[in-house]
């Protein structure tokens, strides 16, 4: 039986063999692999790119103190971007399932419509959830827009939910029981993390501090955006640092949300603020890219 990490290794080598850069996770808190600059920024513009990376994704509101067998505050996504999407992409994807030992002749595989959308990123795409025996194992999306911009080349994004996929392969009902490596379960590695961050996110996070931080990061991003037009050597300009500030804002928003500190009315407003930054950074990145 393959362990959690075996499966990760296999998928990474599978996509490495298909020309992907194997990246490591982005070192800031993100809600999904899509938000890492390797996806959000790289899908923009006319330059082809192929990348695969694991991205631990934090969704504070989904935490359950490590007690729910299926829900996690932080889960592992394997993110694959092929830009542009090759014509045989579905075949390649099915090949990746075979590579981790899924004999599709003994299971039931379906693509069911599921169009992905991220209002905070001004991004959306057309696609499916890939269902294996009734379980959603991958989100499969042809990106159409990112940062409010129509994409030049249409990338495909494959997002594998690694815990679910492993639980399925190992026949486990509880993600904490899956084997991470010989002698270590997922629970051994991660339970404390789930418990402590649930306590922090739901109970102890300082609301006033989080709001303050959100404003500070938003301000820093805006300061950079304002400095851009007059900056003399645009190729040196820290567009990527400005994007880091967007990611910080997005995560702080999620934290405030899980803390119950954002009313429904405020929600729309804050999402709008983050979206505005994301869209502006995307435009700046495209301009910088065009300089070559």
């Amino acid at each position, binding site marked *: 039986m393959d362990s959690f990490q075996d499966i990760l290794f296999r998928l990474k080598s599978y996509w490495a063999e298909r020309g992907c850069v194997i990246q490591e996770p982005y070192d800031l808190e993100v809600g999904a692999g899509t938000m890492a600059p390797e996806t959000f920024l790289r899908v923009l513009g006319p330059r082809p790119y192929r990348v695969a990376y694991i991205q631990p994704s934090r969704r504070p509101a989904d935490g359950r103190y490590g007690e729910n*067998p299926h829900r996690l505050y932080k889960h592992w996504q394997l993110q694959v971007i092929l830009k542009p999407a090759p014509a045989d992409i579905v075949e390649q994807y099915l090949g990746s399932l075979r590579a981790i030992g899924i004999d599709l*002749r*003994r*299971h039931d595989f*379906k693509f069911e419509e599921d*169009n992905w959308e991220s209002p905070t990123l001004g991004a959306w795409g*057309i696609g499916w959830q890939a269902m294996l025996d009734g379980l959603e194992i991958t989100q499969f999306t042809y990106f159409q827009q990112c940062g409010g911009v129509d994409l030049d080349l249409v990338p495909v994004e494959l997002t594998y939910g690694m815990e679910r996929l492993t639980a399925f392969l190992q026949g486990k009902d509880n993600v904490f029981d899956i084997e991470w490596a010989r002698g270590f379960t997922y629970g051994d590695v991660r339970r404390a993390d789930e418990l402590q961050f649930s306590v922090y996110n739901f109970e102890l996070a300082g609301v006033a501090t989080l709001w303050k931080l959100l404003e500070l990061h938003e301000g820093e991003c805006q300061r950079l955006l304002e400095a851009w037009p007059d900056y003399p050597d645009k190729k040196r300009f820290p567009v990527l640092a400005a994007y880091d500030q967007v990611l910080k804002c997005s995560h702080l928003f999620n934290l405030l949300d899980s803390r119950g500190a954002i*009313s429904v009315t405020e929600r729309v407003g804050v999402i709008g603020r983050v979206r505005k930054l994301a869209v502006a950074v995307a435009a700046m990145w495209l301009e910088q890219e065009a300089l070559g």
Partner: protein
Amino acid sequence: MSGLDLLLEIGTEEIPHWMIPPALRDLERLFQELLQASRLASGAVPIRVDATPRRLVLRASSLPERQPDSEELLTGPPRTAAFKVGQPTQAALGFARKLGIEVSALEIQSTPKGDYLCYRKQVAGRATRDILADALPELILKIYFPKTMYWTGKGGPRFVRPIRWLVALLGDEVVPFEVAGVQSARTTCGHRVLGTPAIEVSIDDYQEKLRENYVLLAAEERRRKIQQGVDALLAGTGLRLKPDPGLIETLVHLTEYPTPVLGSFDAEFLALPEEVLVTVMRHHQKYLSVTDSEGRLTPNFIAVMNMDGDPEGLVRQGNEGVLRARLHDARFFWTVDQRKKLEERLADLAHVTYQAKLGTYRGKTDRMVALVRELGGSEHAVRAALLAKCDLTTEMVKEFTELQGVIGGLYARAQGEPEAVWRAIHDHYRPESMEDAIPSSLEGRLVSLADKLDALKGCFAQGLIPSGSRDPFALRRAAQGVVRILVEGKLALPLKKFLGPDAALAEFFEDRLRYYYRDVRGLRYDEVNAVLAAGWDDLTDLESRLVALQQVRPTENFEPLAVSFKRIKNILRQAEFTRRGTVDPALLEPGPEQELYGRFHAVRALRVFRGARDYACDLEDMASLRPQVDQYFDKVLVNAPDARLRQNRLTMLANLLGEFSAIADFSEIVTTE
């Protein structure tokens, strides 16, 4: 009949199941139009369209090899300029030279503008294959889908999902064309897992080759396979399928080779309400539910695979595991939600936005309560209105939003609310579609009315008015719901009073009324227009007038009288006369005028005497005036030179018109004359 057969297969990645049937209808229509426009068929050609998630297929037979030849008339110089003393001029010679023929091949044709030198050019019909090769790429991309994508790069063609292969055969030959970089050929593709990816086909063996490769092309075949599979699974178990034709259709269009599999779940989950179990199974997993012979849910489900079998039980086990997790969640939500009663959630509604401009659900609740009281609701109805929206703060509704209302009702029952209250909460979103029933109880109907009327008034007041296909707040459905509850629930309420003074809202409702009677109930449009033009408020009254009009319409006097009413209306309009008033009997001429007056008064007295509204009697009485009305118009000059006389006559006609126009405006009736 001989001719050529055509096979067109558009091979795609998986098309969303609900878009498939309308796309096929559109494909068929577009192709029929192409045949007509390119003169490849004179009448409707036998066409068959089929689809699976990965292919849209059109087959036609008896197409001609080529278009019929045609003739084109090319006009040259006028005769006077073409010939001088019997000899062709330079103009005529030039015209012939341009066409590459002799002048002798030209002829004189007379036109309204005079005689001209002309050439009848014989145009050979184009080969059908060439016409199709030119037209099919555009036709394919014209098929309508509610949401499309591009995949070859910005500005590239749009389709529902990427096109990956194309089969186009006319007889034995490929119709050559290209769409989105894909070249048409004779190679199709089998089932993703069970079939071969590249299969060469001919028109004759196409369907059979697909079948060999685990693709059942015809939806009816897949439907039958599901049905037979279900029957085989349930045979001898005493279990029954809970009928769900909508879900079966979904599964038919989600599979190329459907095979049902029977699974089970722990019986302890049956403690959850049936609605919750069915929703988890149906909406989230697309499983069919199973009952015992009494119709009670059993701890089983049927999943439909896109496979030929599950000999090792792996698919069943996988699906059981997924369902178990989902049911665990549902039970967890149920338990957590019971810790806080619905009533205690009222305050929380102040934090739930109803709509940015319309405030919170707390405010909406207050308005609904007030409206239910105005509508004459009982204390039970008022209580239901108060609690109706509280389930929006429950974990269960956050997870299963489609169960809003239903969950509130079930929680209210569990928390000891009387049946009249919980049932009203349970039903208050109904009717959710044209097929859905209206709430079963009076309390439920009133709460539903209050909910919908509040939404309509609120949105219209804020200018959030539906336009074209944009109706983000589902206001058309809300108004349709109001109409159906009032009409089908026979609630005699002054609707206009509840709509308020907003003219746009009244007009919107009139539109909905027209739609309801004409398109849903299938009534004749002129009758609906006639009754609506006479005004509407209490919809049960509107309904009675419509029914009466329908009854009286076929009687022999009715239509001629409707014609006379139109005439009266015109006379009054031309005279700019609208007043009803008192007729001076002394000014009436003996004969037809007095007779009509007398008969009209007798009829009016009868109406007063009957008192209660009986529109059919009223209309019959009116129709009985026909001989007098006919005579009147034969013999009496309404526009008499004497002003007093004219005034008196117009008054009588206005009275006559007014008396019956409250039932229907007869000038709207389309008469054969």
